[in-house]
């Protein structure tokens, strides 16, 4: 299996005031295509930093992060954006649907940013929303969608570009447990289809749904566990 995520001796420091904070300290880990991995840890453990690095939103201070084979450290903002656009589909905790924008337009947006024509984008976005059971909601904006529906739109938006990695940051955090469970089921289905899913969470129960769990604490990998708990 090809490695879609490779972290090699990755260190990420932040300067807060005049104090250097180490968020990740010499982390080495790899994730292969088709895996379903949970990155688990309490707040401050470095999991958000790891998500930003894997999501091509940030670059390491030292060490190498390779996403789909490209090392991110030396990339320009434009190159990083292009890699992100191709390789990563984001699902955020607060859904983060664009305001004043219909479900359809939200799902079209990543395609349009890739330079795909409006016509093709519309077709692909419609297919993806239909697949996720939102065919009746195409023209609804976020104010007229329930939390679960919003998260499904967000997942459709993440999937529509057929990214190498779906990066889900606390995707159930803003949902009730029943809807949350449905979202996890959806992620499992996507995994079963062969997609690579990386789930960032602090919730051990949620993490338990993933076949592989990477536990972070104080910027270090505490445990890398495989098989169902």
């Amino acid at each position, binding site marked *: 299996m090809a490695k879609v995520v490779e972290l090699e001796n990755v260190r990420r420091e932040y300067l807060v005031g005049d104090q250097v904070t180490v968020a990740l300290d010499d982390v080495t880990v790899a994730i292969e295509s088709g895996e379903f991995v949970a990155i688990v840890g309490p707040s401050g453990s470095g999991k958000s930093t790891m998500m930003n690095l894997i999501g091509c939103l940030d670059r390491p201070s030292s060490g190498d992060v390779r996403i789909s084979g490209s090392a991110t450290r030396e990339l320009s*903002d434009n190159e990083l*954006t292009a890699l992100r656009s191709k390789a990563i589909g984001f699902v955020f905790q607060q859904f*983060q649907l*664009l305001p004043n*924008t219909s479900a359809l337009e939200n799902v079209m947006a990543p395609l*349009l*940013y*890739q*330079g795909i024509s409006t016509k093709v984008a519309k077709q692909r976005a419609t297919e993806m929303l239909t697949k996720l059971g939102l065919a009746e909601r195409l023209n609804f904006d976020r104010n007229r969608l329930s939390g679960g529906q919003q998260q499904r739109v967000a997942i459709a938006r993440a999937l529509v*570009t057929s990214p190498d990695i779906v990066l889900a940051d606390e995707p159930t955090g803003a949902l009730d447990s029943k809807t949350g469970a449905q979202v996890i089921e959806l992620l499992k289905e996507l995994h079963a289809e062969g997609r690579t899913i990386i789930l960032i969470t602090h919730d051990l129960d949620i993490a338990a749904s993933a076949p592989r769990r990477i536990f972070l604490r104080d910027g270090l990998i505490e445990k890398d566990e495989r098989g169902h708990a």
Partner: protein
Amino acid sequence: MNLLGTARLALSRIWATKTRSLLTMLGVVIGVAAIVALTSIVDGASQGINKSLATLGTNQLNLTALAPDALTEQDAQALAELEGVAVMFMQSQNEGTIATDTNRVNARLVGVSNQYFEAVKPEIAMGSYLSKNPLAQSARDVVFGADAANDLGLTSDMLGKTVKLNGQDFRLVGVLDDQAGFGTAGRVYVTLESARKIFSQYPYVSAIVVQAETPEGVDALQVAADRLLRERYGLSSDTEARYTITNQASLISAVSSITDTLGLLLTGIAAISLIVGGIGIMNIMLVSVRERTREIGVRRAIGAKQKDVLTQFLIEAVVLSLAGGIVGLILGQIAAFFLAILGDWEFAIRMDTVALALGFSLVVGVLFGVWPARTASKLEPIDALRFE
């Protein structure tokens, strides 16, 4: 994303916040409307002035004495001999009183040579001009300007009756209808010969008017007239003369340079309001960037390049400004239309005004949109996503 898609995003955002967008535009609307309306006022005013000047004839030279003894009748006769002269007339004027049996007022007494009425052709309300007959030059006849007639309370039955000029008897032969004219009110006209007897210092005249045969001949005639007078008074070409020679064409160009300057000044003032409008747009755009920080973060996360964000915000600013410009242009033209009716001048939509208004608002949009748009595009995606 291509430009069309980005433009669509920008437009839908403007549409989504209609009230705010309208209020944001207001500054530019007012600025542009002010520029358009003021330009049209200046245009109309100069049109009116030029029209009044044109009634005086563009082929005319006016020689005005700067001292009571600066110009004489002999000078005038000599000028009349110059080549290219069609008509010459002169006048001599002074303050004086006019009176009937019951009333007495101040007026300007004007002695005119016999070509005056024929050359100027003032409208006549009743009676006639002074007689052109050389034998009648000594006749004590007087023609009243409309204002002078009003001041004295003349009625139509006074025609042919006696009025007193500086205490001397004159026969009223006509009243002019010259109110609409230019600077002829409050005057009474007598022959030059009569004028000498009652007020002027023989043989001096206060003004000489020479009309060229053609408007094109005026400039040459002006040079010739000046040379002739300098010869007569033994003045070298660089000595200051005691008379001025002006022609209508140069007067018109002087007036139009004044109205041009006035126009520039007013446009400048209006441009300031346009700049204030631009600052309003910038302010709102900066607020908007802040409010939409998270949206910008999400857009960056799902693949928007810095350029995409920059373009989206820039287009928003430009569209706001340009839309303001268009609305301002329409309002300004409507105002100009009514002002034209009010001021009785011609209404015309000038293409240069349209271009100026739209060009200006475009520039304002770009100028004041760049900073907010750059601020938006330079946001770090992580920080933007985390922004509360």
